């Protein structure tokens, strides 16, 4: 019997070995597969186990954390949620993260290895650091001025520091309170459904993610292309443009809202926003030059990140001359985000250089030690310095005695360009009112703020809607706030 007992013992040993081998498979070799399964709640539990780091505006957190003691323990809170929603986005237990909460998630949630004093050890132990903070470039006063300026109207504002690309304000209205999406309760799903069902799309970040036809504000780009390519050499020379202008190869006639555009100079046409002059100028300058210049301003670049990703602004690369003429005045398929148009204004203000726009000044550990900081970076040189100087002159005149007088700030050099963009089927939609501008304090060597404002549905009679009427006052308030800081 002894032999058989030994055999049975060997069989038990075999069972043990099978258990150990299988346990090793599950716990070591296949562990990652199981850890990564989306149905595995551990990642989420870990994620919310510690309070999230904060997003700072003017050195003060605009976010917070609330300990609920539940499984997904810490919920995000927001101070002034609707005001900063386009900057922060939301961090939801149920719906994930957006915008800075998304782009800087690894810092905020503490998983970024840079946060650990000993990154290698951190990697080995899979331990987690306390969440770090994200210091933004946003200035509260500018943000508030922009939000107040839009005053509940549908629209967006983007404000930049031209020399650095720092984003001073990023506003989209109507907005929402991201705190409503924090937590796991029923009210979160209700809020989500309501926000998504709202026809005004409060969760849409119009400043970064919505593209609009830029209308006449695009004339800055067209002018830059014409000047840089040598199509125009003298701002005051007549441009030999008819009024109305028949789009090349068609019988469509383009006219103006203002008089005096026939054969007007670029200076006059820019100041009063002559469509005929700029359409012809676009067609004459040619597709290649316009595409190139638009591209240098940032159009057709889907990779812009601030670090939230920005919708690509578009300028068609293959068009006939009629389409090109329309595109040159910011119509046809030309579309731009408010941030993109702020970049256009900033390029003029900054001697032609487009600085990479960015929202994050630096990231720090929870105790305030800097982990990473965003360096100022030039994206492109959109135009020659001479062209920039001449465009600065043209834009200043728009505010001084053209369509943009509503943006004037006493004692301050302000340059601007209005835009009123037709859209919808047969231009049936309420036009978008645009205004892009920059402002320079007396004594400063260069403008310190550039702004783009778009108002979707200025609650005014259609004829009254114009960049100068609806959008310029908002831009002025934003610039004033930026200059007074």
């Amino acid at each position: 019997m002894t032999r058989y007992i030994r055999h049975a013992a060997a069989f038990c040993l075999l069972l043990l070995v099978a258990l150990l081998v299988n346990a090793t498979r599950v716990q070591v070799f296949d562990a990652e597969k199981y850890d990564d399964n989306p149905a595995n709640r551990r990642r989420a539990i870990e994620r919310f186990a510690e309070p999230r780091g904060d997003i700072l505006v003017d050195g003060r957190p605009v976010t917070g954390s609330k300990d609920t003691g539940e499984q997904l323990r810490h919920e995000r809170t927001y101070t002034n949620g609707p005001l900063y929603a386009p900057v922060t986005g939301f961090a939801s237990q149920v719906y994930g993260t957006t915008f800075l909460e998304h782009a800087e998630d690894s810092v905020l949630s503490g998983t970024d290895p840079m946060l650990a004093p000993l990154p290698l050890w951190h990697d080995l132990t899979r331990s987690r650091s306390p969440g770090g903070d994200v210091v933004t470039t946003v200035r509260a006063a500018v943000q508030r001025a922009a939000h107040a300026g839009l005053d509940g109207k549908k629209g967006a504002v983007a404000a930049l520091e031209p020399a650095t690309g720092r984003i001073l304000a990023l506003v989209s209205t109507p907005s929402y309170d991201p705190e409503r999406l924090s937590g796991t309760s029923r009210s979160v799903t209700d809020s989500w459904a309501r926000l998504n069902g709202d026809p005004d799309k409060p969760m849409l970040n119009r400043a970064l993610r919505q593209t609009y036809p830029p209308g006449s504000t695009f004339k800055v780009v067209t002018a830059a292309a014409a000047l840089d390519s040598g199509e125009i050499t003298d701002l005051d020379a007549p441009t030999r443009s008819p009024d109305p202008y028949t789009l090349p190869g068609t019988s469509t006639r383009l006219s103006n809202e203002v008089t005096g555009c026939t054969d007007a100079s670029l200076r006059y046409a820019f100041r009063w926003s002559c469509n005929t002059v700029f359409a012809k100028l676009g067609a004459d300058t040619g597709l290649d030059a316009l595409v190139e210049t638009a591209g240098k301003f940032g159009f057709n670049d889907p990779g812009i990140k601030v670090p939230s990703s920005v919708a690509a602004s578009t300028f068609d690369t293959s068009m006939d001359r009629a389409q090109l003429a329309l595109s040159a005045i910011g119509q046809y398929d030309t579309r731009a985000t408010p941030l993109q148009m702020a970049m256009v204004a900033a390029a003029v203000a900054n001697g032609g250089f487009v600085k990479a726009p960015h929202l994050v000044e630096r990231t720090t550990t929870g105790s305030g030690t800097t982990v990473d900081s965003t360096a100022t970076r030039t994206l492109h040189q959109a135009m020659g310095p001479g062209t920039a100087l001449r465009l600065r002159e043209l834009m200043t005149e728009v505010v001084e005695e053209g369509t943009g007088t509503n943006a004037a700030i006493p004692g301050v050099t302000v340059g601007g360009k209005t835009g009123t963009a037709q859209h919808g089927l047969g231009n049936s939609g309420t036009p978008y009112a645009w205004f892009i501008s920059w402002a320079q304090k007396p004594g400063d060597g260069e403008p310190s703020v550039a702004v783009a404002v778009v108002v979707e549905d200025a609650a005014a009679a259609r004829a009254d809607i114009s960049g100068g009427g609806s959008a310029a006052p908002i831009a002025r308030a934003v610039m004033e706030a930026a200059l007074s800081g």
Partner: protein
Amino acid sequence: MEVRVPPRRRGTELALIVVAVLLSVYGYCDVGLARTGSVPPGAAGYGAGLGVLALLAHLAVRLRAPYADPLLLPIAVLLNGLGLVLIYRLDLETPGDRAAPTQLVWSTIGVGLCVAVVVLLRDHRLLRRYAYLSVVAALVLMIVPIFFPAVNGARIWIRVGGFSIQPGEFAKILFAVFFASYLAANRTALATTGRTLGRFVQLPTGRVLGPVVAIWLLSVGVLVLERDLGTSLLFFGLFVVLLYVATGRTGWIAVGLLLAAAGAYAVGSLEPHVHSRVADWLHPFASIEAGRGPNQLAQSLFAFAAGGLLGTGLGLGHSILIGFAAKSDFILATAGEELGLAGLAAIFLLYALLVERGYRAGLALRDPFGRLLAVGLASIVALQVFVIAGGVTGLIPLTGMAMPFLAQGGSSVVTNWIIVALLIRLSDSARAHAPAGTESAGAQPQQEASP
């Protein structure tokens, strides 16, 4: 030849028990420290309780089974202590449902019965007399739950008021006694009579094989009716192992495996409960893909994976996600998550050591009944561990079964303490009568041949 007194090693046992109690108390404190940053208030009481129980059992062994294997008791104490720690730890996640205090009461009863068995049962051969009584009692115990309502799909509980026991747990000891006794008495006939089929299989006469097969079939049938698949698998395995050890016929194993395969196939395709278990085993993530979220097996695998090599640390895992059976059938997942593969391997080795000590007693004993009983009891532990640990780690289809000593469940703890008591008794006889220096020698052909 000089006659030497065989070593008793009671001091070793005591030292190991102290280590086992300290380890358990350490685990208990560790949970508290991880969760609240302070030593839990009950730590002293818990340590004292476990210590007193262990000491009582040790005293009983010291007085009444002085030659017993010194590893059996410490292993049982450590596993039971660890089980209490794990249950206490899971209790923290379910404030309304505390299982650890009840488990401590059951552990006390278990140790009490263990002491009683060690003290009262002076010679294991006494059990042989009660072989038929055992089997009748076992069958009654197994049939009774049919008249009680099902709990979570299985009719394996007897509930009176708030008090519930699982009679099938006790039945397995009784069956081991019966099988051991019957096979010891009939093994020659089983091995040598009857017709030969092929080279390996030798069918004994129906007169010899009939009763045991009938009883076995009956018990498995009842278990299938009660949907207690784990236990029916256990009985099957126990029967085949003992039959093999008693007769030495490899053919029995072949027949056993064939029958098992046929039975498993039949039950697996006919019984929806079993069918779904098999489906879960083959596709643990099917419910996730279907959008119904992870099932218990998937949650269990997640828990094991989360533990990795070294575990998250006691109190820091999330195995409570497994749901209602986290403290019972799936307790091993908590061990796997919080102690890691290292801790899990240690636990497996403790069981392996327990089984090995049982087998060693079987080898050293001289009477076939004792040998078969020791092998049977050790195999019960081994099969239980394999069936449930294999189930929760996805090695084999999941069948409800308690991890010996670790899992919540009074009947299980009590039964396993009785098994340990019987193994202590068996190893005491084995070592007391073994020639000095040859504790594990198994060469006593004369005694063996004539039961």
